[in-house]
């Protein structure tokens, strides 16, 4: 496995400085890329000609307020044990958070894997265990597999609230907005483990924008950027070849098709993007929390006053340029999701900010 190699990094940074002659703007669309870039201060290694912006790659951040309110409504039911990834616990819903609900008596459990939620259901047959399925194509197969296991084992008290979203349609919607001229994408490494790279071909073919499926070590990111810089014409390539195949993971894709069907999804920042969500199919309705609990269709979302997460998520507003950033909105008192989620652009910029002295601006 590539480990941190300062020399290789230095050479990659030099190559970038030499070869990125024209001004280019690249976007990354994966929360883990946002984190790695901020954690290692990779922007400090890039030449001034290269601008790297964050897009809608944090699944928590792009979850609409109305969907978060549905999660809270489930948590408030006395018979429900709500199992969730840790990322969701502090995200602001309308006037509350899951942490606040827990303080008021809601049964909210943080889990590492959807299978942990299944274990809770098996251990507590008297409770309704609902797992909040958040995440893109990396995570959706794991919840799909878990739902099927619940069926096989007859765990009728386990259900899934699917808030899963898929990337390609969102990228299309983003480009259709035409707000920022983008010269290329760093494409999400682990989403692509599942989807493969073919699903991004339209970026090059229809929009003339290249994309490189990139891994998560600092070397990977710099190599991904260099590959984009070197593309003579827009194309989709894989830098993360040790984990991603062009066809993706067929078994995972099969599970997705078995359990889910495409639906419209509401993305903070993009609005409703047709066909970009995953809904549990009718034949698995017994384990679909939305049907089981008669959840209303999520209505329109209302953002907190002054919150500009939507613009940050589209890559048109740099977090530091938001009036609330670092003042009314900090990790301690977050206004919007981008500041709470550890993969959110604002949180990454704030927590891993460089030093504002000569020799170290983030």
């Amino acid at each position, binding site marked *: 496995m590539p480990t941190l190699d300062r020399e290789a990094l230095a050479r990659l940074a030099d*190559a970038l400085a030499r070869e990125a002659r024209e001004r280019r703007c690249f976007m990354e669309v994966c929360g883990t890329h946002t984190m790695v870039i901020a954690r290692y201060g990779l922007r400090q290694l890039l030449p001034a000609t290269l601008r790297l912006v964050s897009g809608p790659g944090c699944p928590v951040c792009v979850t609409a307020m109305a969907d978060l309110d549905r999660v809270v409504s489930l948590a408030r039911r006395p018979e429900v044990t709500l199992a969730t990834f840790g990322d969701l616990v502090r995200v602001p819903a309308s006037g509350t958070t899951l942490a606040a609900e827990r303080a008021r008596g809601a049964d909210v459990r943080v889990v590492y894997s959807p299978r942990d939620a299944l274990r809770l259901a098996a251990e507590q047959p008297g409770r309704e265990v609902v797992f909040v399925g958040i995440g893109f194509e990396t995570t959706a197969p794991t919840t799909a597999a878990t739902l099927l296991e619940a069926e096989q084992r007859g765990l009728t008290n386990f259900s899934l609230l699917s808030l899963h979203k898929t990337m390609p349609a969102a990228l299309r919607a983003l480009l259709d907005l035409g707000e920022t001229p983008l010269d290329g994408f760093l494409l999400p490494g682990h989403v692509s483990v599942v989807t493969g790279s073919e699903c991004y071909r339209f970026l090059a073919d229809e929009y003339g924008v290249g994309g490189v499926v990139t891994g998560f070590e600092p070397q990977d990111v710099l190599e991904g950027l260099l590959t984009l810089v070197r593309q003579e014409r827009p194309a989709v390539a894989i830098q993360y070849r040790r984990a991603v195949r062009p066809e993706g993971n067929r078994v995972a894709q099969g599970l997705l098709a078995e359990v889910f069907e495409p639906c419209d999804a509401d993305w903070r920042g993009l609005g409703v993007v047709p066909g970009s969500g995953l809904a549990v199919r009718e034949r698995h309705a017994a384990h679909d929390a939305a049907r089981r609990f008669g959840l209303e269709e999520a209505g329109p979302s209302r953002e907190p006053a002054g919150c500009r997460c939507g613009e940050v998520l589209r890559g048109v507003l740099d977090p530091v340029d938001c009036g609330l950033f670092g003042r009314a909105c900090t990790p301690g008192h977050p206004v919007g999701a981008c500041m709470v989620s550890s993969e959110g652009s604002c949180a990454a910029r704030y927590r891993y900010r460089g030093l504002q002295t000569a020799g170290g601006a983030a």
Partner: protein
Amino acid sequence: MCLALPMRITAIEGSTATIAAEGLEQECSVLLVPEAKVGDYVLVHAGFAISVIDEAEARETLALLREIGELGEAGEDEGADA
């Protein structure tokens, strides 16, 4: 999105594998990677292995990184076609 760690498979029983990283051991499901075998490195996300890491590609990435460095050092006027 997508925190996933490369871990080595030390045992497989059915669709559950025992996986290890330095100082750490746990189980994960290998349902999504039926081709995985003991000794393979897999990417583990949320309790599931999602990909078998291709060691040859991993080594090639390292070699490529070195190559980029060497070509880069060869001259000032490198074009974008190396």
